[in-house]
């Protein structure tokens, strides 16, 4: 248990130190800006996020989802598109 705690504290310290060292404490620094929060934009953001990049996803509507969120169901399984 104690060991784990130490490990976590280490991680936290390390990430803070890293950020400071690189001067990225500024929250407005990212890798990729994705414009449009429809299915394509969401997929792009998820992939890049998973591949180790920091992503901003910008959507002009009050929610992400795009037109696909308006579709009832989709071909061919007529699964819910949400």
């Amino acid at each position, binding site marked *: 248990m104690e060991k784990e705690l130490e490990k976590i504290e280490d991680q936290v310290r390390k990430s803070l130190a890293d950020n400071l060292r690189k001067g990225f404490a500024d929250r407005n620094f990212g890798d990729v800006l994705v414009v449009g929060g429809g299915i394509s934009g969401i997929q792009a953001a998820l992939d890049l996020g998973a591949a180790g990049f920091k992503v901003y996803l910008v959507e002009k509507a009050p929610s992400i989802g795009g037109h696909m969120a308006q579709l009832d*169901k*989709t071909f061919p399984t007529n*699964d819910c*598109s949400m």
Partner: protein
Amino acid sequence: MCTGRVDLSFVLRAFSKGADGVFIIGCRLNECNYITHGNFHALSMVHLCKKLMEHIGLNPARLMIEFMSGGEGILFAEVMDDIGKKVNELGPLGKAEGIDEKALRAKLEAVTQLVPYIRLVERERLRIPFKSEDEFDTFFTSDEFNRLFNELIVDKLAISQIMLLLRERPLSTVKISEILGLTPSEVSRHMNSSSRQGLVRYDESRKCFALA
């Protein structure tokens, strides 16, 4: 977890606990969310279980299976309404079929005990490579299936029931045949084979069979 994980013993458990109906819903056939098409296994299990229910005097309509996708909310609601109505029409389990509670429990218990055996048999003899609901219907209503069922399961089930009866108290062949609704000659056939296997013994003094 896939519909194919829905086990014969789960269905029997629900009926043993007095459920009036059991309804299984799986993904649409041939639209498996895994790559395994386990919903066909569920379909096969349902057919077999219905046959077992019929055999022990339960209305097989109490067990139902439907296939639909996660997006078909309206269909789901409609089907659920139908099922509710149907189960109400079928009436209370056992009573509607005219089986008394104790006998029903015993029968279900006998089938439950047979589940491991049924699994083996199902795998060896009753697993079918079909990929449509119709083909399943055809197979499970065929003479071939009836023959296999009689050959592989009916006797075992009778013996399983007899063993359960004898666990409570020794009984005569006549008495057993009365309780189980079998002919005395069938019962003596089972008693002979069971005593040969050393499962039961005949108590000369009481003219009864008892567990060995």
